[in-house]
């Protein structure tokens, strides 16, 4: 498991090693993979922008709460960016080797986290604690 992760991790920084694997797929598949990567980068950027916005605009909040929310969003953004490059590398390698595309739990994770965050906000509004 750790060994496999390290093998993928090395590919992050070695594009030329990726090209030694298997054969080059139809460029349309590679371009689709590139667009998926960019969509994940935009998700990461939205989280980063959200984290910065919380810090700058929710100034009525207690410092600790505001900073915690902001830090969680920024960390989520960084995680999304890392996962974007990781998934791109794995998809590219799978296509070159003619394997199935990698299965992933990350979208479910992100969806659950977003739903939980929304529920937290609903609870905060209902309890009348928002902005206090």
């Amino acid at each position: 498991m750790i060994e496999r992760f390290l093998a993928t991790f090395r590919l992050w920084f070695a594009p030329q090693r990726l090209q030694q694997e298997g054969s080059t797929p139809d460029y349309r598949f590679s371009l689709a993979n590139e667009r998926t990567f960019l969509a994940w980068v935009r998700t990461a950027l939205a989280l980063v922008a959200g984290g910065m916005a919380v810090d700058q605009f929710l100034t009525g909040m207690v410092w600790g709460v505001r900073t915690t929310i902001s830090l969680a969003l920024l960390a989520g953004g960084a995680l999304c960016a890392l996962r974007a490059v990781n998934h791109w590398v794995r998809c590219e390698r799978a296509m070159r080797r003619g394997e199935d595309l990698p299965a992933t739990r990350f979208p479910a994770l992100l969806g659950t986290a977003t739903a939980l965050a929304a529920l937290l906000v609903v609870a905060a509004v209902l309890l009348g604690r928002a902005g206090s």
Partner: protein
Amino acid sequence: MSTPYGAEAADERDRGAQPERTRLAWRRTTLAFAVAGALGVRSVLDGARGPSAYAVAATSALVWLCFLAVAHRRIHTLSADPAGPGAGRAVRWATGCTLALALLGMLLLA
């Protein structure tokens, strides 16, 4: 019946549309980056922050410029030959820029 009528023409159109869709994806990601970067620059407007906010603001702008250059280069390569060199370099630089912006946001919290 081997191939549906017009399928070949549609396939040809798809080939042509792929680089354009990818080009537009890079463009809108650059725009999203500009929004996030603008928030980083905006932090200097908060009077309460120290001089370090200026450094963060300037670096945010620089990181966005870097992303713009990466996207521009990639689009240039794509338009020259869509089947040419892969996105490997651009993908890694784009990730680096995004991580740098997240880090700058964290610096603002300190």
